[in-house]
């Protein structure tokens, strides 16, 4: 099964769960006075879930013939190994780490780390350029966000 039909299948599952929530779990919670309303919080989701299930079935069962593929896709997902998959995954992991460390480690430390390690993952070896660039950029961004835009970013690790 091709990727687009797998995705349609996943969306079908999500839409079914959504439909279950909309049809069977929401209406009992509604206070009695709101039940006299012509529209309930679940009305719109019910319509949407039915339409989404039908549309994803159309794709899953292949009712709509795919158009002739005349143009080569930008990236062929069947041969992901040919591309820099490791770098992409490492960067995604780095972004998750950044999200988790931003509060405890503080903005300055985590950002410098993110920019430096990101550069190293991509193959940069000139650390004597990379680290100063990361330091300066972090400083500038912190100054702009904190002082110019006035949004608080805790700069230092939690214990300082």
């Amino acid at each position, binding site marked *: 099964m091709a990727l687009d039909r797998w995705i349609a299948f996943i969306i079908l599952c999500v839409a079914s769960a959504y439909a279950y929530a909309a049809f069977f779990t929401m209406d009992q919670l509604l206070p009695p006075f709101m039940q006299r309303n012509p529209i309930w919080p679940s009305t719109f989701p019910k319509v949407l879930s039915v339409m989404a299930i039908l549309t994803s079935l159309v794709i899953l069962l292949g009712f709509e*013939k795919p158009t002739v593929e005349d143009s080569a896709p*930008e990236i062929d997902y069947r041969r992901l190994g040919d591309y820099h998959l490791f770098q992409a995954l490492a960067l995604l992991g780095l972004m998750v780490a950044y999200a988790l460390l931003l509060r405890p480690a503080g903005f300055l430390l985590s950002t410098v780390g993110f920019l430096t390690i990101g550069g190293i993952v991509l193959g940069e070896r000139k650390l004597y350029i990379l680290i100063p660039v990361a330091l300066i950029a972090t400083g500038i961004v912190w100054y702009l966000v904190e002082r110019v835009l006035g949004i608080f970013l805790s700069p230092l690790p939690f214990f300082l």
Partner: protein
Amino acid sequence: MLEGLLIGLQTALSFQNLIMVIAGCLIGTFIGMLPGLGPMSIIAIMIPVAISMGDPSAALILLAGVYYGAIFGGSTSSILLNAPGVAGTVASSFDGYPMARKGQAGKALTIAAIASFAGGTLGAVLLMIFAPALSSVALLFHSAEYFALMVVGLSAIAAFAGTGQVAKALLMTLVGLIMATVGEGALFNMPRFTMGIMDLQSGFGFITLAMAMFALPEALFLVLKKKEMSGDGGKIENLRITRKEGKAIAPVIGRQSLQGFFIGVLPGAGATIASFLGYAVERNLATKEEQAEFGKGSIKGLAAPETANNAACTGSFVPLLTLGIPGSGTTAILLGALIALNVTPGPRLMIDEPQVFWAVIMSMFIGNLVLLVLNLPLIPYIAKVLSIPRNYLIPFILFFTLMGAYIGQNNATELLILVGFGVCATALKFADYPLAPLLIGFILGRMMEDNFARSMQLYDGMSFIIDRPMTLALLVIAALLVVLPSYRARRAAARARGVSEGD
């Protein structure tokens, strides 16, 4: 209208707003030049900055400047490197790159700048004429019509935006609408579909979603596939064009401004279609010997798509400013930014906040002028950005997307949502699902449900669909938009095979 123009001039010519236009154009050109980063990502990255300025006119002026700059920057990289940064400028590389190869890079850039300027300016004039007329019609609309109009807009986007596969685009729109129902709605004080997670109480963040849908997949594509970014950005000289060349492209610019503008007004069409169509039309109109030049460095072939895509960008502001319904991914992001700034685009915009409306139009003129006068001479220097090594560039792009999502909510969970959705969006992009309909559905979802609920309450049921002929007509149009393309594709496929289908 004269009064409005003066209000707009007064707002747009304030020192702060002038700085905004210039900064926006420069930033847009700068980032738009990087291959793989489209205007949607750039605007998504700039939104936190714009929102925290607090002044809606200044924010919209900045973002519009970024939009223009990005389109212009995209054409620069497609001319110099044959690496279009934006889908709307792919057609510019057909003739722009051969010109650059022949050593006429400077001339090609000048033609691109002049064509963009003319297209953008004529588009803004048309916007000035059509927007007030359309918005006085739109004032007659009732919430039932608004609901129907949004359905039309969404189905038009589903019908035109995808790569011919309506079901996929429709499914993406529905997913967007479903995502919009997460969190507390305005009409019912009751959290829905939050699965008990507190962070979802207020719904998904729109900036987070915009970043995850556009900026992150584009950055990941840059990582996955090393594009050659080393060009000879150093030797751009001889920016002049001759009088004869000017005469040759003048009619092309005139025609394509009109055509591009009207294509831009249609929801779902936008700059990409306008530029390809403009290129095709001009090639058919040209004389035999000129036709042979197309694809080998014809100035007409460069001027046509450049004019059309800028005029279409301006045209796409018409439905946004008059109806409050975005027709493209970029204007959808702008709509989200405006709502965050407490301005609701729509027919009342011109009455309630004339300074916003007219300032945007005036800043379009100023922005185009800035692009021509300021950016063009700077291009040889700005092109140096193409020599930034990607080892430095990509971490910074990722960092800015993270920052954008974080600043808006000050919540680190938002970053995890961003990465999660980013991965999903990349998978969707692999499978050729269009992403813009999802975001447009997400942004319109709330408004659509509110209008639907309001008309349901007014008519105590579904009868508003039959009682109001305009609503019914609009809904029928919406249904036709979805059904017709797939029906025609089926017919065409059947005819191509020579046999009719069994069912």
